[in-house]
C-alpha cells in the first residue's frame, strides 16, 4: 500500500473520531449546564470543554472571552479551529476524497454524505437551539462510518490504518476527558468519593457511553475512582484506554510484519502498563500524572507511526 494512502486513511479515521468526541464533550457540557449551579461561573463551566479539545490557547487568540455561546460555536462550527466539528469533518472528507479508490464504495458514500448532510446545519447558531440534535447527528454518523468500515472493508492494510487512526485518537480523547473532568469535579483537598454530584459524574460516564456499563459492572453508586478505573484499565469498556490499546497493539503487530519498529515497541510498553496495572497504584502515583504521561506516550506513538509507515523516506 502507498504510504500516502495509508496516511490519508489514518487521518480520515482520526478526524471522524475527533468530531465524535468533540460532539460528546459539547453534549455533556451542555447537559450539565442545564442543572443550576451558583458556585460555578459560565467561564469556569465552559473552559474544560476547551481544555479537553486542546484548544484553550487558540481560543484565547481567536475569541477571548469564554461564554457558553462563544465556546459552543467555536467548538462546533468555527473554521479557524482545526478541531471544531466542522473542520474535523471537512478534513475527514478531504482525506477520504484523496484516496477514495482504496475504500469501498459504501465507506466513501458514508463519508461523502456526512459532508453533504452537513449543509443543513449551515449558519445555525447552536447556542440558541439544535445543539443536542447536532451532536446526536455527529455521533450517529460516526457510528455509521465505523460500522460501514467494519462491515464492508477487506481486512487488509487499509482497514488496519483506518482502525489505527480511530483508536489512537480515541485513546487521546478519553484520557483528556478523564483528566480534565476529574480535576474539575474533585476540587483539591476533597476526599475521593466525597460530596460529588451524582448528576455530574453520570454525565461524564454518559459522554463516553459508559453509564449503563458502570451500573452493570459495579451495581453501586458512582464513585470517582471507579469511573477512573472503568475508563483506564477495564478492557471490556470500548472507549477505555486499555480497550484502545488492545486494538492498537494487534494492528501494529499486523502492520509490522515481524519487523521491529519503535511504534510497536512503545505501544507494547503502554499496553502492558494498562493490562497489568492496578488502579490503586495509579492513584498513588497520581491520576493526573498518569494521564499526562499517557497522553505524551500516545502522541509519541503517533509520531513513530508517521516516521515508520506514513512518511517513509528512502
Amino acid at each position, binding site marked *: *500500500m*502507498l*504510504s*500516502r*494512502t*495509508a496516511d490519508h486513511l489514518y487521518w480520515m479515521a482520526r478526524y471522524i473520531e475527533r468530531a465524535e468526541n468533540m460532539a460528546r464533550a459539547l453534549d455533556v457540557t451542555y447537559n450539565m449546564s442545564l442543572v443550576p449551579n451558583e458556585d460555578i461561573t459560565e467561564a469556569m463551566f465552559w473552559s474544560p470543554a476547551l481544555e479537553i479539545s486542546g484548544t484553550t490557547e487558540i481560543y484565547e487568540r481567536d475569541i477571548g472571552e469564554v461564554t457558553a455561546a462563544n465556546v459552543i460555536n467555536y467548538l462546533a462550527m468555527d473554521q479557524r479551529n482545526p478541531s471544531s466539528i466542522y473542520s474535523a469533518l471537512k478534513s475527514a472528507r*478531504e482525506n477520504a*476524497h*484523496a*484516496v*477514495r*479508490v*482504496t475504500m469501498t*464504495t459504501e465507506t*466513501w*458514500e458514508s463519508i*461523502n*454524505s456526512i459532508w*453533504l448532510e452537513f449543509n443543513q446545519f449551515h449558519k445555525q447558531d447552536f447556542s440558541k437551539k439544535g445543539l443536542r440534535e447536532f451532536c446526536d447527528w455527529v455521533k450517529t454518523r460516526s457510528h455509521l462510518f465505523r460500522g460501514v468500515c467494519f462491515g464492508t472493508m477487506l481486512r487488509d*492494510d487499509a482497514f488496519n490504518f483506518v482502525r489505527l487512526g480511530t483508536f489512537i485518537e480515541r485513546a487521546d480523547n478519553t484520557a483528556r476527558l478523564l483528566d480534565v473532568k476529574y480535576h474539575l469535579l474533585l476540587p483539591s483537598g476533597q476526599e475521593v468519593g466525597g460530596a460529588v454530584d451524582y448528576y455530574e459524574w453520570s454525565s461524564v460516564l454518559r459522554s463516553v457511553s459508559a453509564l449503563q456499563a458502570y451500573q452493570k459492572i459495579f451495581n453501586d453508586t458512582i464513585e470517582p475512582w471507579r469511573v477512573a478505573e472503568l475508563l483506564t484499565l477495564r478492557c471490556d469498556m470500548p472507549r477505555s484506554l486499555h480497550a484502545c490499546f488492545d486494538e492498537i497493539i494487534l494492528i501494529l503487530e499486523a*502492520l509490522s*510484519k515481524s519487523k521491529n519498529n519503535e511504534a510497536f515497541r512503545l505501544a507494547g510498553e503502554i499496553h502492558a502498563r494498562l493490562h497489568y496495572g492496578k488502579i490503586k497504584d495509579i492513584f498513588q502515583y497520581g491520576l493526573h500524572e498518569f494521564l499526562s504521561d499517557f497522553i505524551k506516550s500516545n502522541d509519541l506513538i503517533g509520531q513513530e507511526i508517521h516516521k515508520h*509507515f*506514513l512518511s*517513509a523516506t*528512502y
Partner: protein
Amino acid sequence: MAKTNTFFDEMISGKDEIRSIYSAYSQWLKDTSSMQLKSKNQEAELLFRRVGITFNVYGETDGAERLIPFDIIPRLLSSKEWDFIYKGTVQRVKALNMFLHDIYHDQLIIKEGLVPQSLLQNSQYRPEMFGVDVPNQIYAHIAGVDIVRTDESQFYVLEDNLRTPSGVSYMLENRKMMMRLFPELFRRYSVAPVEHYPQVLLNNLRAVAQNGIEEPTVVLLTPGAYNSAYFEHAFIAQQMGVELVEGKDLFVNKNAVYMKTIEGPRRVDVIYRRIDDDFIDPLAFNEGSMLGVPGLLSVYREGGVTLANAIGTGVADDKATYMYVPKMIEFYLNEKPILENVPTYDLSKEDDLKYTLSHLNELVVKEVQGSGGYGMLVGPTSTKKEIETFREVILKNPDNYIAQPPLSLSQCPTLIDESIDSRHVDLRPFVLSGKETSVVPGGLCRVALKKGSLVVNSSQGGGTKDTWILEKNHHA
C-alpha cells in the same frame, strides 16, 4: 415531439415515423408519465451526487464540484451501425499508431510527401522520442475518437483524442445507473454490455510491459484530487484493481521506477498516466511541474518502464494533423478509410485562409491545439461583432487555426424540464490497443443541453447519455 426538419433525428425518421430500433422505447415513453420520468431523473441525480461523480470546472471561482448533467433517455444504435463505427475506429487507431511509430523512426510518410515536413515543428512532436522503441509499437493505448452523425448512414470523425482521453467512467457509470433505474427496459432490449472495459484495458496494459516481466505491476498516475477528471482516475484504478498514484508517490532509481509503500519501494512496470506530457517529468519538460516524476523520461527511453499513452502522441491528434489521417490509412494499411473526416481548411495555407476569412459566418473556426470547446468561433450562431473580434484573433496567428463547415449533428430525444425535446449529440467510443485493437460496444455520448446548441462539451453546458448498442439477435 415536433421534429426540426434540417437535422437527422435518431428516433424519428423524416416521415414522422419512429425508427424501428426505437419502437419499443417509444412505446415505453408513451406509457410513462412525466411525473415518473421526473422522479427517475431526481433519483439519478441523488445517486450520482452520493457516489460523488462530480467534476471540477476550470475557471469557476468557487472551485465547486458539480455533476455533469445526466440525461435518462438513452441513445440507441443498431448492431449494423455499431459494426461500421467499430471497424472505422479500429482502422483509424491502427493507422495512427503506425503513423506515430513512423514519425519517431524512419518518417517514411514524410519522405513519400504525403504529410508535410512542417509537422515535425509541431510543439506536440517530441524529439526525445525519436528512435525510442515502445512495446508492441503501440503509442495510443487508449484513444477516444469523437464521432458525429449527420444522416442515416453518414458519420464523421471530429477528432482523435490520443493523449489522455477522458469520459469512459461516464460510459460505465451511466450504464450502471440506467440498469438500476430502468430494469424493465433492459428486459425488452438486449443491450451489449460495457462493464468489462476495465478488464480489457488492464489486459492490454499488462501486454505492453517490457519483455520478460511475468506479473507486471500496473499503476494509474493522476495529477491528484483537484484535477477535473480525478473521479474518473480513481474509478478506473479501482475497477482495474491497481494503485492510483500521484507523482510524489513515485521515484526513479537506477533505470527503474518505484512507488513508495508502507513496506518500502516497489517496482512499477506500466504507468497508465493521466498527466499530460508537459507535466510528467520536470527534468525533461515543464520544470515547474510538481505533478510529475523527475527522471521518468530517461527510464522510459531506456525501456525501464512503459507509459500509456506514450509520450508524444499529441502530434497525431493535433487538428493540423487530423486532415492527413485518411492518407495514413491508405499508406499504412492499404485500405480505404471507413469513417470520413470533416472537410477541413488549414489556415496556414493561403488559399484556405482567404476562403475562410470571407466565409466566417458560415464556418466553425477552431484553435489547432484547443480543446474543451474553448477558443472557437461558431460562425452561424455568432454576432457580427463576435465574428469581427475573432477575425482579428485569427489574423494575428493564422497557422494556429483550422476551419470546418458546421456539422448538422444528429439529435436525440432528451428530457428537458419534464418534457421530451430534441438535443444534439456526439459519441466517443474508446479504442483500446495493446495485444489487439478493440472497442467496447458503447462510449461517451455527450448531449448539448442548450436548445439549438451544437457544442456538447461538459465545460460548455453539455450533459451525457447512456449509449445502447443493440445486440445482433435483438428484436424489440
